[in-house]
């Protein structure tokens, strides 16, 4: 069951000129749903590109405009951060691959305009991750606010360092050595990712993932690693990327599906294409689904996952929530952890985390 505000948001994301049909009362809820989905700036960019921004009434337009200003500011900061990372690591001959938002912005991809994000994600070869941490440290990136348990957890079990915060700028940097934890059920080979990476103009030693890998990484992050808070935003990223890559390369669908099997990421891609088509009318040809037939879950599992993802991918806003939304989100959270680690590691970790969250939750909110 799709409630009106979400249906309208999806319609405008798929076809921005549909925004002309919205009343002020429609906008009143749509702006709020887009905001919690981190899609407000993206919405502005899509509507502006379609040439219909002047048709948006001034009151909601002001909010879209403000979100775009914030996103543009974030992009300027990301460009600055990337240049500083380059300064820190290029002299040491440590190759850096930009991931997700930073890659979209630096490579000028169509998923970038208006996209909101906070952290910069990079990938470095596992053999050089300690050296990378040291050289980033010299330039002011430190690991703060993580206790001994967190530190051990990240370094032993995760595919990344604990998040680094720059001492002065307070920007957050996630340094990965592969795209999934070593304990995860799927096992993509980072060597393959490096082999297909594209150099970034103007930054020797820096790369972005190849087109197919960029889609696969986003799909994996969303459907395997369980970052669902911005699920619809990530689907919109993939939608924009797919439309561009298919326009540039008529053989892209075959390349993408073949690459998914090669990378052991065919299941997340299957979900991404399924829900992209369902939510955003991403133009996925039937041939792509046929090529992914082996990755398609068995019918009972697929029915269950449909039930979970159709709820979990909706913006986390009260107007989009149904009776089972909370349960679905919780089950997806458990699933993402289950996929990340075997149970004998997972259960003690979650218990420990829960106890810590209870204590931290009381301290963490700001004074008004």
């Amino acid at each position, binding site marked *: 069951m799709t409630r009106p505000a979400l249906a309208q948001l999806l319609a405008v994301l798929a076809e921005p000129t549909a925004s002309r049909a919205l009343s002020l009362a429609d906008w*009143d809820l749509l702006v709020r749903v887009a905001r919690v989905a981190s899609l407000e700036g993206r919405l502005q960019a899509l509507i502006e590109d379609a040439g219909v921004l002047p048709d948006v009434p001034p009151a909601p337009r002001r909010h879209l405009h403000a979100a775009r200003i914030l996103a543009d500011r974030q992009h300027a900061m990301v460009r600055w951060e990337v240049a500083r990372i380059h300064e820190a690591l290029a002299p040491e001959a440590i190759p850096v691959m930009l991931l997700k938002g930073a890659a979209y912005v630096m490579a000028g991809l169509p998923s970038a305009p208006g996209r909101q994000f906070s952290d910069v994600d990079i990938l470095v070869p596992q053999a050089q991750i300690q050296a990378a941490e040291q050289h980033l440290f010299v330039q002011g990136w430190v690991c703060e606010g993580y206790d001994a348990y967190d530190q051990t957890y990240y370094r032993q079990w995760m595919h990344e360092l604990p998040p680094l915060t720059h001492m002065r700028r307070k920007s957050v940097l996630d340094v990965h050595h592969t795209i999934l934890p070593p304990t995860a059920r799927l096992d993509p080979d980072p060597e393959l990712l490096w082999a297909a990476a594209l150099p970034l103009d103007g930054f020797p030693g820096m790369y972005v993932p190849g087109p197919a890998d960029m889609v696969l990484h986003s799909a994996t992050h969303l459907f395997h690693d369980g970052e669902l808070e911005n699920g619809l935003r990530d689907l919109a990223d993939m939608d924009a990327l797919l439309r561009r890559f298919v326009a540039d390369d008529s053989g892209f669908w075959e390349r993408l599906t073949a690459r998914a099997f090669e990378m052991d990421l065919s299941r997340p891609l299957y979900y991404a294409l399924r829900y992209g088509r369902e939510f955003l009318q991403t133009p996925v040809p039937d041939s792509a689904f046929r090529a992914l037939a082996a990755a398609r879950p068995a019918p009972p599992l697929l029915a269950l996952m449909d039930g979970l993802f159709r709820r979990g991918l909706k913006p986390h806003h009260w107007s989009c929530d149904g009776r089972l939304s909370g349960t679905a989100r919780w089950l997806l959270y458990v699933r993402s952890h289950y996929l990340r680690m075997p149970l004998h590691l997972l259960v003690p970790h979650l218990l420990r985390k829960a106890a810590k969250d209870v204590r931290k939750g009381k301290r963490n909110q700001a004074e008004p």
Partner: protein
Amino acid sequence: MIAHEDLRAGLRGAGLAIQVGPFVVRLRSRLDRVERSVALFYDRQLLPLASAPFADFHVTLARPLGLRSVWRPQARFFLDGRSPFRPLPLAHAYPLFEWGLNWCIAQHAHDFLMIHAAVLERDGRALVMPGEPGAGKSTLTAALALSGWRLLSDEFALLSLETGKLVALPRPVSLKNAAIDLIRDRHPQAIIGPSSHDTSKGTVAHLKPPHASIERMHEQAAPAWLVFPRFAAGGQDRLQPLDRAEALLKLVGSSFNYSVVGGSGFEAAADLIEQSDCLNLEYADLDASLGLLNDLAGGPA
């Protein structure tokens, strides 16, 4: 005008639409304190819901549930169902609304350069007074607003990035501690709400903006004077010219969103400096300082 029963029903039902300068706030609350204060301060700014289908901020003030609320009643601020800060004691529910609204505006209104400053106007010319807490800004602002200046804003200057003019945000002036009785004594006709004691800012009471401030809230004003007050107990009141470059630095230092709006914020701030006399005010005696500020505008209003 909206009758009090309707106001109460609105607050407890579909919400009350309040025009606060360029923003529409849709407020819901079952708290009596909020109801009383809104009726007192915002009665002339209420909009019929039918004429306000779009609201900029959907705010709810509610008591958190739970056992603790039995012996320690609290109020929590929600923006569209999410609560950005900790609850406060129930007695501070109304100041919590005002502070929460500041937060909403500061987070979202990036079509303005937002400055922590009071703004008043005479003859179409605006006086902008940024000031650290404790600089005596609110006392000066209240006294000016009650003696012929039009109040645009007590502590939240909105400089339009489009027009370069100041946009009014008529809200109650927050008076702190000794200033409450000082203003009450000087202006017995002023409408001052109940005091909230022991807030993070001490005792706080709000002064209702004069009628003209509310009636003319959609009139923008061009900047004319930029004055940085500094309270100097026992000193001599005086206005001294301030170097423009330094004034610009101090102005952007008082901005909430200078780093967000970037280049256009710099342009707007520089234009404001260009059009304004920039002055430091050493402030010791209210009457003496009021005299100095009135003289800027050609004598008492």
